[in-house]
């Protein structure tokens, strides 16, 4: 018996040991960027620092926050870098003194993109806009309010704010500005809710919907692939969703995490963002192709849990 079992146990322990041994490795929890975007960034980073492995957990903002909360509760948080949509969770972390300050020595970075003196940062700009399938809709809306018009009945879609960070910020912004009545009107006008922005953008491109409240960068990517879409920047303002990134104090390799952050704020990193359809935060770098050079936008905030719960019961969403 022992003859069979012992080598296995020994091998297992060896493998376990090697797996747990710390290499030059950091873990990034990210929401608000799609897989190919994150992978492009990691590839760019690895061109500069090939020795550092970046493990990525990417999902909707809701899921990333929930996972992190569960890990914090268990006392075993994993990420070396947290990158979310919405500022709320970062304020929470900052209050508990769980964020490591990085001195804001980045040339060309405007002060409004440095939060709390460098505890966390904005590294690209993400907007919620109205995307339109031009094959289905010929007369474009001009404001958020227009979406409740009868001519767009059963054509409008947005992402599930429980899952998607930009949608949560859009919900917060629009319910704040226009009241929850705006969403009741949208519901009456047949607003559909899809799980995530990328899914919604696929369906919009294929003509399942005519218009969408969605993020700008993904729509720019689909337009580049040939999708019949156009972006409407509402005259009452595109919604700027804060997408902060920070290094938590529990990170075992804050040095490596900081290298990644510095890369994101470098010219090279910023150019990758622009290629993927985001606006940069460093001055002097041009915005994405085909997008207006200056975008009038208003900063949004995540919806409160009361607003979210009312939205959920309005649209029959379960959480």
């Amino acid at each position, binding site marked *: 018996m022992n003859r069979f079992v012992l080598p296995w146990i020994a091998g297992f322990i060896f493998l376990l040991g090697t797996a*747990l041994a710390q290499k030059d490795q950091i873990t990034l929890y990210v929401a608000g960027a799609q*897989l190919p975007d994150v992978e492009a960034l990691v590839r760019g980073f690895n061109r500069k620092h090939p020795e550092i492995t970046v493990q990525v957990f990417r999902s909707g903002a809701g899921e990333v926050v929930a996972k992190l909360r569960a890990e914090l*509760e268990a006392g075993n948080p994993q990420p070396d870098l947290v990158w979310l949509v919405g500022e709320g969770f970062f304020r929470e972390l900052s209050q508990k003194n769980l964020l490591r300050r990085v001195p804001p020595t980045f040339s060309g970075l405007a002060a409004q993109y440095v939060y709390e003196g460098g505890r966390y940062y904005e590294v690209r700009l993400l907007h919620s806009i109205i995307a339109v399938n031009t094959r289905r809709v010929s007369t474009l809306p001009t404001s958020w309010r227009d979406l409740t018009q009868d001519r767009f009945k059963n054509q409008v879609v947005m992402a599930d704010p429980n899952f998607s960070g930009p949608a949560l910020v859009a919900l917060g912004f629009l319910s704040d500005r226009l009241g929850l009545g705006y969403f009741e009107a949208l519901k009456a006008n047949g607003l559909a809710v899809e799980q995530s922005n990328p899914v919604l953008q696929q369906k919009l491109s294929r003509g399942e919907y005519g218009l969408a409240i969605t993020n700008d960068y993904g729509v720019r990517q689909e337009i580049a692939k040939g999708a019949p879409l156009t972006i409407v920047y509402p005259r009452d303002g595109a919604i700027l969703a804060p997408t902060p990134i920070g290094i938590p104090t529990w990170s075992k390799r804050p040095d490596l995490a900081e290298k990644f952050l510095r890369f994101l704020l470098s010219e090279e990193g910023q150019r990758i963002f622009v290629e993927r359809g985001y606006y940069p935060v460093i001055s002097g770098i041009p915005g994405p192709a085909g997008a207006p050079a200056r975008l009038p936008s208003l900063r949004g905030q995540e919806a409160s849990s009361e607003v979210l719960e009312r939205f959920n019961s309005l649209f029959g969403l379960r959480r």
Partner: protein
Amino acid sequence: MRIAGPLFGGLAALLLLAPLLALLLRGLAHLAGSFGDWDVALTSLLLAGGGTLLSLLAGLGLAYLSIVGGAGRWLEGLILLSYLVPPFVTGIGLLFTLQTFGLKAYGVPGILLAWLLHYTPLAYLLLKPQLRSVLLLLHAAEVHGVRGIRRLKVLFPPLAPALLVAGGTVYIALLGNFGVPAVLGVPDRVYVLPTLAYARLTSSLSPDPLGQAAALALWLGLLALPALLLGQAPMVEAAAEREREPRLWARGLLLGYGLAALGLSTLGLLREALQNPYSGALEPAFRAAWELPLVRQGLQNSLLLAGVTTVLLVTLALALRPFPGLLRSLRGLLDVYYLLPGTLLGIGLILLLAPTPLYGTPWLLLLAYLLHLSPLALRALESGARVEGLVLAARTHGLAAPRAWLRVGYPPLLAPAFAAGFLIFPLALSELTLSALLYAPGAETLGVAVLSALNGGLYREAAAIGLALMGFSALALLGRR
């Protein structure tokens, strides 16, 4: 020794069942609060019950056609293929196929259809041997002049236990299925317990996501319990195949069903994977899928995990084979992890192991796979060739026990061991329920990669990987005799 034996056994049992105990402790506290989700529990129950009835009916029909038509290896393989494709791939395939025809696959009808496609072969496999014996009884009754409605008296009572057992098996599988309702239910706001538990777990609104998910998992266990208690009722003795004139029409119908089922799940995948949706040009997405690091990582991790799981489990089962009592009691203990929905095991493991260094590593997933799939390996060797007599014969003729096992005990067991491996590997390769709950960054599995590509709008890449997974799963057909 007398006391140490049971004591050790009890400790081992406690350790093995610890994930379930953790779930029970945490879930009970939130059980009261989860009564608000009674409608989801009811949806789960009704959907699983309805799906079971449909699958049983279709499985029984197919079994009848197969017996009457004398289905050969290939035809049967075609029918079984749908079962080897991971359920969520069936779901994605159905989604795309129905889209081609301008139909919506989301919601209750889509879920039921996907389940029907996927689980009918299981019902077919479970019912066919029983139906064959019962048809012989029916034949005997007809020879003795039993006609008309009275034939049902011969047909149904002997078949009833088999129907109950097959129904119980399918019901538990449907109840615990995460992939299909995740793909086809959630977008239409049709929630079942596994998807709601997942949503709870990943909800930023919930004050205690783990506890609430645990409570939902307990509901799931509660709903599964009656079917578990059905157990393995005695079955009609499997009879030898009777020579009969194969009916071509039956074969034709069988072939028709097989092709339709395969078509429903693959056509959409093929279209999506091969064609640019905007230009309509032929533009295979396999390369693009392969170039996603997540996919490559997922494939690598899944191959590794599935390989290690298979080898470890088969080795463990072989090592335990000389101790049939131990093997049987261990299998009896672990059966619960195969029979109960994977969501229970997944959440239990999170509750138990989140504070340990195991959390956030692939080892947690390996542990989950090992627990979940071990009954398959243990059962295969438990019911495999009876070699005790051969080993005793060797020992009587002078071979010491280890040598006797090595020389004459294990060689006849290699065939069932390989069969177990062929069964376990594809299941582990395309596992989703546990992976979705437990995967660690950098340790995504193939199933997670597909689902995340799908949720990330990478439809074409998801379709391409789905097709590849289908191919891998079809490999398991080769393992069949």
